[in-house]
């Protein structure tokens, strides 16, 4: 994992190497100062030599200066490398996600991808920075301070040999105990947030059924749990600080005791003792820093796993090398196609065979869950079937260059979206080079010209994220216009007019039919009225083609079609 992560330091290697080196020098100056102080006392004060005091004193100031320069540089380089690493990681993740197939997307779900890109990647950047800064500083400080202490007096340094391991053990125990609990806390917090989130989206239901008290009780249960677990964990965590102080003070007292006796016996100079005291602080501070780093690593590890999971995902649908870039015609054929979604125990499409000729207008009808959407998604190769062959223009879709195929097979998805930006920018989504004239033409065909021209700025009108400032029906017409701009050979409308009212829908269908004479159009719809004029209508039922034919034929031969038709006719006077 580490090796893999290290590749994202690319471009910041110099900073990543230089920062610890600078840090090292800074630690060196830090550790030298008490040593110099010891000389000030031993050779200056005790020998009554003012020149020695001035000499070692000015060396101390020099050290401070070097420490300042190197420390500041290390900070900058560390931030640069750490944030650079984070940016590289995010970039790699985002790039990878853009390559995801629909199946890959189904596997992750969008919510977690967003968190992984924001929270997890940010934590990785912070950890990288922290590592460059502390992971070098703390151990070196620990080692150098110990070496210095040893060089002053080996025997006294043995006190560290007792106190440091005790503290290390205690800190380890705390971390070991607290960690599993942290995930419990995270769980409890997630549950709490889950309740709030659901409550917010279902507020009309809650109010409508007067269930405020019920909801409050539900929340209270989770809320208390978060509180109780937090108290339990933090009570343990805060124990690490007194533990650290206790051991530090104990060491200090022990050193003053043994050192004091030695000093009074004349085996040790007072300056040695004073120098020693400073090293105690440095050693214990490095130990706490190491613990913090360790704590952070455990949390960062989870983030690293989540980031790398995205990057390491195998894209299960890729463009062939030297794929065909031109779709010769709008012919479509399905030959014994079966398809199953990952994790399902039943095929969603079962042995489907269909032939559609260029320019045909095809309607697809069937109950919810009958796999209408699945069927059309195979055409622009959003999924690959497990069995059988899907052909467009007489060629297996797997042989096309993926981008070329999707350029020429245009889909208006059921769950469609507009993006924040102007209307023009949204339209150019379909075709980057589209002129205003072409855009207006597409809008006209999609019955969207009227309401767009009424908006402030017309094509320059800002669309909110998700298209919130347009009604459902308007949004659908805009997404149809966007798809038209691709000038596709095949156009797929997946329930794309469900929110459009009937009168508009009728008009829209007429203009579409007139404008798209040579284009093969597949329309998925709930209402028979939306598809009854089609050249060919497919009736789907539980992943199978239950019937095929035009409206009149199906009325005579297909039970499902007839039933649906009759149920929809109830609203009409005889």
């Amino acid at each position, binding site marked *: 994992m580490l090796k893999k992560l290290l590749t994202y330091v690319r471009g910041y290697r110099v900073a990543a190497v230089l920062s610890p080196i600078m840090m090292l020098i800074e630690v060196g100056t830090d550790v030298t100062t008490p040593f110099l102080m010891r000389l000030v006392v031993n050779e200056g004060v005790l020998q009554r030599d003012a020149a020695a005091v001035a000499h070692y004193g000015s060396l101390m100031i020099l050290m401070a200066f070097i420490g300042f320069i190197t420390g500041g540089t290390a*900070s900058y380089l560390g931030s640069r490398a750490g944030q650079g690493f984070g940016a590289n990681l995010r970039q790699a993740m985002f790039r990878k996600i853009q390559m995801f197939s629909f199946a890959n997307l189904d596997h992750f779900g969008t919510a977690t991808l967003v968190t992984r890109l924001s929270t997890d990647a940010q934590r990785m950047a912070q950890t990288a920075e922290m590592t460059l800064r502390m992971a070098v500083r703390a151990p070196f400080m620990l080692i150098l301070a110990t070496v210095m202490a040893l060089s002053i007096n080996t025997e006294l340094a043995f006190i560290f040999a007792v106190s440091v391991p005790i503290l290390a053990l205690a800190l380890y125990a705390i971390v070991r105990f607290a960690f599993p609990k942290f995930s419990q806390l995270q769980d409890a917090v997630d549950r709490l947030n889950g309740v709030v989130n659901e409550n917010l989206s279902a507020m009309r239901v809650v109010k409508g059924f*007067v269930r405020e008290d019920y909801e409050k009780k539900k929340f209270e249960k989770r809320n208390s749990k978060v509180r109780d677990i937090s108290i339990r964990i933090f009570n343990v965590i805060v124990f690490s600080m007194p533990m650290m102080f206790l051991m530090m003070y104990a060491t200090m007292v022990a050193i003053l005791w043994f050192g004091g006796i030695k000093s009074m016996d004349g085996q040790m100079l007072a300056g040695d003792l004073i120098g020693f005291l400073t090293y105690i602080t440095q050693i214990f501070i490095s130990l706490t820093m190491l613990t913090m780093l360790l704590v952070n690593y455990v949390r960062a590890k989870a983030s690293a796993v989540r980031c790398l999971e995205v990057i390491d995902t195998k894209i299960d649908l890729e463009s062939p090398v030297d794929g065909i870039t031109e779709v010769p015609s709008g012919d479509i054929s399905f030959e014994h196609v079966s398809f199953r979604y990952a994790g399902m125990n039943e095929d969603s499409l079962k042995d489907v065979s269909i032939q559609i000729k260029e320019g045909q207008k095809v309607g697809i009808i069937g*109950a919810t869950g009958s796999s209408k959407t699945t069927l059309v998604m195979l055409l622009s190769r959003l999924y690959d079937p497990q069995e059988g062959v899907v052909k467009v223009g007489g060629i297996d879709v797997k042989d096309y260059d993926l981008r070329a195929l999707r350029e020429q097979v245009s889909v208006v998805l059921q769950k469609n979206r507009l993006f924040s930006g102007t209307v023009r920018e949204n339209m150019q989504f379909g075709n980057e080079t589209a002129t205003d004239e072409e855009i207006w033409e597409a809008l006209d065909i999609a019955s969207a010209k009227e309401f767009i021209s009424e908006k402030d700025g017309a094509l320059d009108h800002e669309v909110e994220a998700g298209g919130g400032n347009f009604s459902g029906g308007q949004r659908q017409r805009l997404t149809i216009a966007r798809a038209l701009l691709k000038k596709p050979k095949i156009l797929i409308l997946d329930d794309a007019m469900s929110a459009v009212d009937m009168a508009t829908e009728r008009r829209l269908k007429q203009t579409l039919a007139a404008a798209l004479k040579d284009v093969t159009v597949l329309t998925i719809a709930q209402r028979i009225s939306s598809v009854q004029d089609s050249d060919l209508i497919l009736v789907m039922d539980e992943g199978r083609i239950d019937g095929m034919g035009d409206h009149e034929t199906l009325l005579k031969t297909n039970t499902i079609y007839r039933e649906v038709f009759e149920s929809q006719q109830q*609203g009409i006077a005889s």
Partner: protein
Amino acid sequence: MSRRMQGRRAGGKTDHKPRNVGKTTRRIFSYLDAYRWRFFLGLFLIAIQSLAGVAGNAMLLPIVNGIVDGRGIGYLASNLAIMAAIFVSGVTAGYIGSRSLIYVAEHAVHQLRGELFAKSQYLPMKFFDTKSHGEVMSAYTNDAEQVTTALEDTISNVMSSLLTFVGTFVMMLILSPLLTAIALGLMLVMLLTVLLISRFSSRYYKKRQQAMGDMNGFVEEHIRGLRVIKVFNREPQTIEGFSKRNEETKKHSTLASTFGTAMFPLMGSLAMVQYAVTAIVGANLAIAGQAGMSLGLLATFLQYTRNVSRPMVMISQQIGTLLSALAGAERIFAILDDEPEVDTGTIELSQEDFLSGDCYWRVPNENGAEKVPVRGEVVFENVSFSYVEGKKVLDDVSFYAKPGQRIALVGSTGAGKTTIVQLLTRFYEIDEGRILVDGFDIRDIKKESLRMLTGIVLQDVHLFSDTVKENIRFGNIEASDEDVYEAARMANADNFIQPLEHGYDTEITVEGGSLSQGQRQMISIARSAIAEPLLLILDEATSSVDTRTEREIGTAMNKMMEGRTTLVIAHRLSTVRNANAIMVLENGRIIERGDHDELMAQRGRYYELNVGTADLT
């Protein structure tokens, strides 16, 4: 472009400055009332810890001098014993103090979160419709967390740093006024440095937050829209858009964290200079034997010098945390202070009778209360309403539904049909006119009673992460399991619930559940059925269900509508045919009314709406 950015800034919260520090602080402290003694005990104990640290170091003076002067082991032992005692009591006090603060903070924030949730249950729908989920959620997550941290750590840290600083300074002054004077000069330099760097780093921090907000917004939008991006081959452009924002974020993050972290080496170096200068002057004084300088005093003084800079850095960093915690608290308080739904009605449903079928309005009067039978009549009298001032969604709408009647509202998208539900349940208040239920103005009826009386099935189905059974029971908590099964059977939901792996105990999940949209709607219909409302509102309840399934539900719905006054808001005209009366809404006005046959004969808008299918026959 610029307008887009503004929109995002208004939506995301990058505000780190509290508006009224004093008032907010007092209000936060009011949450500590119940734990007041624990809180002050905690602060007191932590104060002892800081002072013990200062006092313990003071013992270095007699100890070092004792060693240098060779006063003997006994002297050393007794002084070390005092030092150890001071340190141990300080550490113990600190530990107990921290635990007390954790207890207090977690309890206070628990209460705060509880109040926040409770309050939001009673806020008007307008609040939820105008605020994004993220905005409200962050009150529970970020804001509450910041308040916890402040109560648990920050306040005590600031206090303890302040005490350490003052304590150390006083000790230095006692030990050597001369050396303190020298140290003071450098301390001022340090203080200025801290202030200067804090200013820089907060400026870059703000920029970083903005860049990050913009980047995360982009990520959110483009990952949710990824399927569309793929269908349109827009991956390269999207990656390019991301790269730009990623780069921007990196630039500002690097600067922000450079300034944030450079504080340590900078202050460390200044402290070292101070240490060196003090050492040189002190050593010279000690050599010359001037100003009462001894080696012990110098050692002690130097120990303090090392400690004096840390509290300054600490305080400067914690102030920022404290301020953003206050800003967070203000956002929470703003929600707590929002106006709740107006509910001044006094007329109630007598509930015990309601369930048994005999149902009365309890109308208070001078002699107690009068019982009026519930019939289920609805009248809209010249009702006008607008969400945004000046844009009337309903304009002078009048209609009535007699008890047991079925009234349908049709019209194109945006004609104001759905608004009628919002008004009848008083999710929103009307601007003009009156709405009457059984002759009472709905503003005089208790909201709880009004909503108990009405059952709504909405187009967007909202189920909860719980079992199927509990989701249905949500409609009536007192319902038995048998009632749940019956309601499910009625909504035609039983035949798909039974085969589920755990039947009625199957957990419903929010995302990617095993239930289809239509099945979820049927569960929500069962939920309404079990509530046995007298007034039923179906807001395009079957629009997400295909026509065949709709027909299956149809019988159930018909059964449910029997004997109940029903308002049907329909998108599909097939669902309204049997209505007693149909209102056609356009631009907020009723333009046609009558039953199906009458309206078809009129050849007006209703006929036009129908023509799409009417051409068939």
